[in-house]
Each structure stands twice: as structure tokens, then as C-alpha cells.
């Protein structure tokens, strides 16, 4: 029987693969946003607000934050699994991380669609 340690995680390929796919999504978004900001007009309030009211930018930013949520969850969980040995403390921190990430997502939606 496999003696599995409680990590709050699944074992396997899915998260590993997800971390890489979300990394590519975030990389593409970053390059597009840097390009748009560097080649566009000087950033005044109007330019800034108009950018974030465009549909594609809202959806892309939400996609970026969703990718960040999954990517960061896998990454931070790896860090916690490596350094935090007491199981109870690790689980508590993992729940805290998940709540933080959920709050990021909710806040992002609130900022983008108000």
C-alpha cells in the first residue's frame, strides 16, 4: 500500500501540466500588455480607463488572473510541501493560500466589471 502523506493535493500530471499551460497564457498576456502600453499614447487617466473598459482587455485580464490563481496555487503548494513539515500547519497554510487566491479572483472581477 502506498503510504500517502496529507498535502491537500492530488498526485499526478494534471497540476504539473496546468502550471506550464497557465505560464504560457500569462507570458502571452504580459507581452501583449507591455506592447500595448509601450506603443500606445502616453498613459493618462482616460487612456488607462478606456483600456480596461474594452471587452478583450477585461476578458484577457480575467484569464490572466485565473491562470495566475492556478499557477500560484501549484507553486506555493510546492514551497509549503518542501519547507513546512508539520501536517496540520501545512494544511492550515494551504487553506490560507487558497482563500487568498480566491480573494484575488473575486477582487479582480469586482475591479474589471463595476
Amino acid at each position: 500500500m502506498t503510504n500517502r502523506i496529507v498535502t491537500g493535493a492530488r498526485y499526478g500530471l494534471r497540476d504539473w501540466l496546468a502550471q506550464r499551460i497557465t505560464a504560457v497564457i500569462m507570458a502571452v498576456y504580459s507581452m501583449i500588455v507591455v506592447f500595448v502600453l509601450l506603443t500606445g499614447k502616453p498613459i493618462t487617466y482616460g487612456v488607462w480607463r478606456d483600456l480596461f473598459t474594452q471587452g478583450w482587455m477585461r476578458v484577457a485580464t480575467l484569464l490572466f488572473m485565473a491562470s495566475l490563481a492556478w499557477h500560484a496555487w501549484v507553486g506555493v503548494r510546492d514551497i509549503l510541501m518542501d519547507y513546512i513539515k508539520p501536517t496540520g500547519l501545512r494544511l492550515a497554510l494551504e487553506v490560507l493560500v487558497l482563500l487568498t487566491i480566491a480573494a484575488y479572483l473575486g477582487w479582480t472581477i469586482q475591479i474589471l466589471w463595476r
Partner: protein
Amino acid sequence: MSEAAVKTPARRPRPKYLNLQALIFEIRLPLPGWISILHRISGALLFLAPVWLLWMLERSLASEAAFDKIRHYAGLWPVKLSLLVLVWAYCHHFCAGIRYLFLDLDKGVDLATARLTSWLVLGASLAFSVFLGWKIW
């Protein structure tokens, strides 16, 4: 082969040599190791950064007056310095991440190439940080 002969090596306690003093002064991490630990540190930093960055985004989109306040706030030197650290963390995580994607595909895994790409990651992320820092201010 007896069962005991198979099991003995796994049971032997592995040496642990990970106190802080050893980590800082004695273990000489090879360059790709530095890229790895910096990837981890920058990742941890970037996990915490949205608390601050989302607040700034929210304020900057709230109204013209709030936007001007945030622009002034971002010009203060401690804020600038912190933002620059985050810009570097992002650039490093980005460049090192691309290197890891190639390593996952078995590209650049031999020692010479791995060292060369480590230097490239360090150089490119610093260059991008300087460029973006210069562009932002």
C-alpha cells in the same frame, strides 16, 4: 538476492546538512541552482504582490483624482524601489520559466548549455528590468 539486501540501503538514514549557516556560508550553489532558488523566491514574492498591485489598479481606475494620487504615490522612492523589485521578480520568473519549459522538453540539459542559459536568464531579466524601469519612469 535476499529481501534484507534490497531493503537496507533505503533504510539507512540519509545525511541532513541543512542548517542556515551551512546554507549561507558552506554550500556553494552552482549557477543553475541560483536560477532555481531565485525562481522560487521571485515566485513567492509574486504570489503576495497582487494584494498591493490590485489595490493600486482599483484606485487608478476609480476616478481621475484617484488616478493622479496613485501616479504621485508610485513616484515616491520607497514605492518606486518596491515596484522595481517586483518588476525584476516578474522578469526573472518569466525568463527562468521559459528556460524551464525548454528543460521540460529536454532542450539544453547538458552542463555547458545549462550554464550558458542560466547566464542568459540572469542577464536578460536584469536588462528587461532596467528597460521597463526606464520606460515606467
